[in-house]
């Protein structure tokens, strides 16, 4: 666990992209503020401030960074007009619900970085974007793309769709799916054992991910090895639910102490 490598931010800026399907961002902000005494700001749809021209550019950039084949290294695409048009409709509609395209995560983050910072990186604010879109990163161990819940950087990206799709569901779920059982039937059979789209537990679970983003901002190290700690890097849905909902504590003793130290510094530093 690193000590702080950046100054404590004066605010946490929470942006959104698309319909977050019941995720309560205000509750997440209140949670972070309560835990670390840093104020939060709800910034709304990340694309709303930009000109028509800039939206055109961003739509084109987004259409280029689709992962076409998760088993192959990424190559920048040459998008068809309808793909650019799709992106434009998607990002200009704050209630957009449709997802399913896997975007190259690092490049997605770069597009958001350029939008937010306009070329000048700023550590004064911890910026987190909550999206309903799916992104992935290349895994060198097994040479394929994997969908991710979060991509911690400046700014950090957290995906509600990633939270449903990326951590693996119970093994039997996939076996039965391969045998042709409709997903809707399997969701009934395994109800409760994984998060689904629009899950009422989403906001509670996301609190841990929002905290990971903040920890990354401060220390460069968002994770904890303790599977009972909210900062645990879960790879299975059952791990997600355990670490975020039923762990024996909210944060492990080491991180709890760290957060207390952060609270004290925030108060002394006059952040509030």
């Amino acid at each position, binding site marked *: 666990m690193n000590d702080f490598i950046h100054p404590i931010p004066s605010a946490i800026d929470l942006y959104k992209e698309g319909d977050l399907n019941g995720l309560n961002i205000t509750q997440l902000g209140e949670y972070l503020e309560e835990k670390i005494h840093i104020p939060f700001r709800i910034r709304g749809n990340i694309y709303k401030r930009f000109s028509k021209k800039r939206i055109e550019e961003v739509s084109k950039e987004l259409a280029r960074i689709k992962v*076409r084949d*998760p088993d192959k290294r990424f190559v920048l695409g040459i998008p068809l007009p*309808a793909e650019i048009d799709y992106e434009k409709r998607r990002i200009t509609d704050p209630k957009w619900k449709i997802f399913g*395209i896997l975007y190259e995560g690092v490049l997605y983050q770069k597009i958001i970085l350029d939008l937010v910072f306009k070329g000048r990186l700023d550590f004064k604010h911890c910026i987190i974007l909550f999206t309903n879109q799916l992104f992935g990163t290349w895994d060198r161990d097994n040479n394929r793309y994997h969908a991710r819940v979060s991509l911690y950087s400046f700014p950090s990206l957290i995906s509600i769709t990633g939270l449903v799709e990326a951590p693996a569901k119970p093994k039997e779920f996939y076996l039965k799916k391969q045998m042709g059982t*409709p997903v809707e*039937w399997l*969701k009934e059979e395994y109800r409760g054992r994984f998060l689904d789209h629009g899950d009422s537990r989403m906001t509670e679970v996301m609190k841990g991910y929002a905290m990971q983003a903040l920890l990354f901002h401060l220390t460069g190290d968002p994770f904890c090895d303790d599977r009972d700690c909210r900062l645990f890097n879960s790879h299975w849905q059952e791990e997600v639910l355990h670490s975020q909902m039923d762990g024996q504590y909210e944060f492990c003793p080491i991180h709890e102490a760290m957060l207390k130290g952060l609270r004290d510094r925030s108060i002394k530093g006059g952040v509030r």
Partner: protein
Amino acid sequence: MNRKKQIFTPVSEKEVTRAIVDGFARQFIEYVESDCLIIGGGPSGLMVGRDIALKGVKTLIVERNNYIGGGFWIGGYLMNKVTVREPGQKILEELGIPYEKAVKGLYVADGPHACSKLIAAACDAGVKFANMTIFDDVVLREGNRVCGAVVNWTPVNALPREITCVDPIALESKFVVDSTGHDACVVKKLEERGILKTVGFGGMWVEQSEDLVVEHTGEAHPGLIVTGMAVATTYGLPRMGPTFGAMLLSGRRGAQVILQKMKKK
């Protein structure tokens, strides 16, 4: 002795032949030029045809098989139950296709019943068919606008060239619809000519691909509307499982695009 009365009126073989040739020729001549030429008579193509024909658009569906309906007769694993996700069942209702709820948001219908009703709906709306007819090439006009298709008899393609050196013929239309499923034959032909570049299937998140197919349905190139699974091939969307809601809704979206464009013209 009284002869038993015949059930059917006596007609000679030559009259039967004349009736077939005459009926076919009259329709074919009329449809050498149409408003919309749909390549592929599967669920999305039938749906486009039905919706535009209801609005008076002169429509011909070209189907390479003898039978119309594509994969809509059967569901996954050759089982003849077809599934649609909400809101696809609204189209089943509209077409008078009985269905039942499987689980929340998923409905099951009898494949033969659903498919035959959809075909009948297209026929009733005024769609005409050229079955056993295979797409061969596109007709292009100024600015590479797609203005028709070159077709041939399907058996010609199935036999060795030495036996069947039959030249194809061209049909003209204001719009061409590629509803040829995974093959995306019309789009691929444009790609062969270096006019359009497709990316093939994506591989993941099948559950969501239905929405994406509908959202990407539209004009891929001037004069060419892409619907159904051809949309997934064109734009590299995830390959879908055996649910048909997106085929029906994509067909409907394709029809809306055509009607809108025809109004503008």
